[in-house]
């Protein structure tokens, strides 16, 4: 029983970061109608920027987190302005091909940058686990989970309470009206949305990079995990992404503990198949195709 509670807790901690990365993907899709195939690569890039900030520039971890989100966010904005803007009205396959190209680019630049060797972001947290009631948690994990939850709340507040957040929602609902009636600069909104979406992936990378290795496989993992979460939770659903992120974290951790760690990554696909069979729009999605 203790073992079970411990594993479930580990799963929840991991899952909150899955939610974070998936929300970025969901936001980019929901607002821009773009399937960001390179999402996992931005996640990996985030971890890498943080790693180098700490390892090469000897700056504190906190600075690395901020720097990583800023750098990846700026890169995202630049990519939106430079490339995605040109194909804004095209078929979805077109933008998917472009983000596939981005993925190949980013993935391999990172591979070259690291030489394919796994790295580990050094964080200021002690490896000594904290005891919280029944469960033991590593401080780094606890920090990562709490921080992602706080960030998710912050993004939610941004979208609902601030001028630019509301402008983003308005553009998503009717960009013609946003331009004509309110004079919202939709170019800026698109760049901001993409930057924020990939920034969230980068943040997740900086958080998970202190717990797992930063290696070239990280991008592919980040992509499949976030895709799974978004499909299970329902496209564009905020609550759905949070819930299914946690769900994936817990089921994966339990499967690894009680079934077989080799097949741990299959859990997500089983969830996808189940959801697509019984609730094609996702657990929290509206019925749209």
């Amino acid at each position: 029983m203790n073992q079970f509670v411990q594993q479930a807790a580990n799963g929840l901690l991991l899952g909150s970061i899955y939610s974070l990365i998936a929300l970025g993907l969901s936001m980019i899709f929901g607002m821009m109608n773009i399937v960001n195939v390179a999402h996992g690569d931005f996640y990996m890039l985030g971890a890498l920027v943080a790693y180098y900030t700490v390892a090469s520039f000897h700056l504190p971890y906190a600075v690395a987190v901020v720097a990583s989100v800023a750098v990846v966010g700026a890169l995202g904005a630049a990519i939106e302005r430079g490339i995605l803007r040109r194909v804004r009205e095209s078929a979805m396959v077109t933008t998917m091909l472009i983000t596939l190209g981005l993925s190949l680019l980013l993935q391999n630049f990172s591979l070259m940058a690291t030489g394919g060797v796994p790295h580990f972001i050094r964080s200021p947290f002690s490896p000594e686990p904290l005891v919280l009631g029944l469960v033991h948690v590593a401080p780094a994990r606890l920090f990562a989970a709490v921080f992602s939850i706080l960030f998710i709340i912050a993004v939610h507040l941004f979208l609902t309470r601030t001028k630019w957040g509301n402008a983003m929602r308005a553009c998503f609902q009717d960009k013609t009206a946003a331009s004509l009636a309110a004079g919202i600069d939709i170019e800026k909104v698109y760049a901001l949305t993409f930057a924020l979406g990939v920034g969230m992936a980068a943040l997740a990378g900086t958080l998970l990079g202190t717990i797992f290795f930063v290696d070239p496989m990280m991008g592919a993992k980040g992509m499949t995990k976030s895709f799974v979460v978004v499909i299970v939770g329902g496209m564009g659903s905020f609550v759905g992404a949070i819930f299914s992120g946690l769900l994936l974290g817990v089921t994966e951790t339990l499967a690894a503990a009680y079934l077989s760690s080799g097949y741990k990554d299959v859990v997500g696909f089983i969830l996808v198949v189940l959801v697509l069979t019984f609730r094609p729009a996702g657990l929290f999605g509206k019925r749209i195709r």
Partner: protein
Amino acid sequence: MLSVESLNVYYGVVHALKDVSLRVEDGEMVALIGANGAGKTTLLRTVSGWIRPSSGKVTFGGQDITGASCSRVVKQGVAHCPEGRRVWPAMTVQENLILGAFNRSDRSGIKTDLERIYDQFPRLKERQRQLAGTLSGGEQQMLAIGRALMARPKLLLLDEPSLGLAPIIVQGVAGVVKDINQGGTAVLLVEQNAKLALYLAQRAYVLETGNVTLEGPTADLQNNDYVKEAYLGAGRARAQ
């Protein structure tokens, strides 16, 4: 205040506006009438910067705004209340209104304007926390007008505010538009309901397949035989 000179707009090969010229003076209400597909919406959207003209010139308050971005045009003082209302359905009434003031930064001014609009449209005040998509057509029209007013425009572009509304509601909308104009805001009113438009405005233009075919004070146009035949009672009676 607004002057449009020999504007030409194409959609691919469709020549939607052909050398269209038009003026709106300070505080004036001008009507633009015409049948379906005449190019009325195209004209308003070109003024707003949504569509780029292939030639011609748009100036507002002495400044050249041809091909300017929508956000610059709104900042200059031209707000657009689009055809079909187009409120943001999944946002509340209040959020819709406040976003209308997106390009303003005077917090207190925004607040007083919001109160003023709620005074003017008590229905909206009652429903300020309701999602705009759940409002009735008439309420949505009020909201769309209110949203445009929140930009505190010098010129309001109104695209078919009577579209799809019951006659009694149309009366209400007409009253509102009249009040706005009397409050000093110039209005360029696009309408298929020519009778209403000619009644409200001081001057009018008739647009037919991209050409301005007639213009003048509304009193003259109301008595023009062609207008009577094509746009007022006479023609319609025969068509029915």
